[in-house]
């Protein structure tokens, strides 16, 4: 589903990603772990098409298409979804209006009819229930005055409504207490299908206790230096990142274990 080859990216002239290789197949869940400043969030934002980042080398194929040639909105319509580490507050724009606009854009891109306000209202009420969010929030401005947990639930709600093929979750557990974490993780797990995939970007292991990855990749200084299964995450949790840094060798090409074909 997602194939990243030798991806280099920079922001304001500074190289952040220095040759990423990664394959994520349909039905898989991968975790990218790394210390602060390793380039994890950059990878997530580059995949989503953030304009501040410049791809200087490499390629990304998503569902057979050249992802890097697509505008951010085209990537979303193609089925890529980024759950933001810091969701943006937009005063004055009602959450349900925002969601309906996105939902209908995705439908239009698939040559499906837009759905009207009433139908969307029913849909969103059902989805809100699934995510355990406070329904009143959908009538409020997007993320405006939301708590950290509400913002993360809102990202989950958007993901639930838009039904993407690839979910990229950037620090999805930050700002969540244990109960909220479990409930958000349940929501993420419910969205998993054999046709879709999940890429979890995280500093800490704790989300991976709830959303269990098929593969774990350690990102340090813009490169994947080690890949393994879920036990690698546990090892990071107990030993930190330093030992990986010390043991880091130039990453061999295409180290990702793949449990399926994209």
């Amino acid at each position, binding site marked *: 589903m997602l194939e990243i080859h030798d991806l280099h990216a920079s922001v304001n002239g500074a190289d952040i990603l220095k040759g990423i290789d990664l394959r994520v197949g349909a039905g898989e869940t991968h975790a990218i772990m790394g210390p602060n400043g390793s380039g994890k969030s950059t990878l997530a934002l580059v995949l989503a098409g953030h304009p501040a980042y410049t791809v200087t080398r490499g390629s990304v194929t998503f569902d057979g298409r050249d992802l890097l040639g697509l505008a951010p909105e085209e990537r979303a319509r193609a089925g890529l979804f*980024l759950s933001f580490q810091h969701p943006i507050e937009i005063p*004055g*724009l009602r959450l349900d209006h925002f969601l309906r606009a996105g939902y209908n854009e995705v439908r239009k891109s698939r040559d499906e009819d837009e759905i009207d306000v009433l139908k969307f209202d029913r849909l969103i009420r059902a989805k809100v229930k699934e995510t355990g969010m406070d329904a009143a929030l959908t009538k409020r401005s997007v993320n405006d005055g939301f708590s950290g947990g509400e913002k993360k639930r809102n990202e989950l709600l958007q993901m639930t409504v838009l039904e993407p093929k690839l979910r990229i979750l950037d620090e999805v557990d930050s700002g969540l207490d244990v109960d909220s974490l479990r409930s958000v993780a349940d929501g993420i797990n419910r969205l998993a299908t054999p046709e879709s995939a999940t890429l979890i970007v995280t500093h800490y292991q704790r989300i991976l206790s709830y959303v269990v990855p098929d593969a774990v990749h350690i990102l340090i200084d813009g490169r994947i230096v080690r890949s393994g299964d879920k036990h690698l995450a546990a090892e990071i949790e107990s030993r930190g990142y330093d030992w990986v840094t010390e043991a880091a060798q130039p990453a061999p090409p295409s180290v990702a274990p793949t449990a399926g074909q994209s």
Partner: protein
Amino acid sequence: MSPQATPEAPYVAAFEAAEHDGAAHDPAWLRELRRDAMAEFTRAGFPTARRGNEAWKYTDVRPLASTAFAAPAPDDGPGELDLSPYELPCPRVHQLVFVDGRYAPQLSTDPPSEGARSSHVFFERGDGPIVGRLAEAAHYDVPLVHEHLGKHAGAAASAFASLNTAFVRDGAFVSIPDGVSVPEPIYLLFISTGRPEPAAPTVTYPRVLIVAGRDSSATVLLSFESLGDGVYFTDAVTEVVAGPGAKLRCITLQRESTAAYHISTTQVVQARDSAVSSVTIDLGGSLVRHDLSVLLAEPGASVSLNGLYLGTGNRHVDNHTFVDHAVAGASSDEVYKGILDESSRGVFVGHVLVRPGAQHTVAHQVNKNLLLSDEAEADTQPKLEIFADDVTCTHGAAVGALDPAALFYLKSRGIGEAAARALLVHGFVREIVDSIANDAVRQYADEAVTAALGTG
């Protein structure tokens, strides 16, 4: 025609002609009011000086002063007018329509509601609201008109207010008696035909007097519309008197032609515990200037001032507001927002005066401007003069482009560039539109704003 010595001279001539022709039936005090105003206008002259002219330093009225505006010809009546584009979405409205400054009885309505007595019977003091013509009220020498007309707009004195008063003959008189709540919106619609060349540019002087009695409540919409895209000049004055405990919501929707000059002076005077909400929405005009002045004369008075101005083309919109905290324990809350595109320019000068002894004053002021093009310009200037020490006063100003982080967030959900920009712009204006409490007026204004923004 001999060359005119000054830009004011044609107005003096028009004044003398009008006084000579049809002023005999007006009460003496009204004739005197006009004559004094004309003298004041002649003395002050148009504020065209480009130096030492603080109140007009951002706004150059020389093009206006040098244009010859004539009174609309008497036979310029509109005939059958389709008002459907201007209909409020509610079944009952107190509606007064003026076309090119003249009252249009066939277009004006009065809802057959209980408590709303015929608006035209001024000599009989009814217990319902009066929504009627100033000309009739003056003719019957209604004491409230005598008491208030021209007594308040002077505080925000400008040559334009004086000019309006010098020509005051008709307009709207709204009186809400003590304790009366008017559920229907009161709708004062001023339509200019705005004929393009070769028709001569015209000038009208819309005048509104609103007197809200003790513990009364009403919503008044003032709307300025144009049928054509010609050059004309609207010189409007509104005086608002809010009695003790009165709740008054005034909305002004300005949608003049893109070639029009619109200058307005509004003076609000508030008694104890009155609450006034003012919303000013500018969607049209070429050169627009509002002077909105509020006197919080007694403790417990509160005012909220909201404004929205959209700039396109070369439009110039200048909002000057002045809130006078004359006594202790009054509050004001002000939010003005501008969206400026192409080569337009927005000006906001927010003057708040907290007089000595006006303790426990609460005054908040915010002006935000969204610039949608490199050529657009916003000037924002808060002016806080505070002579009391136990007060809560804040102000803030912002000028900027659309937030790129917000744009990316919307795009990351599949929303394209144009739609994302439109959603953000609509989000920006929402706060102002939502500050209109009356459902029908809010819906009407919302549709007008949406149409003006040109995007869904």
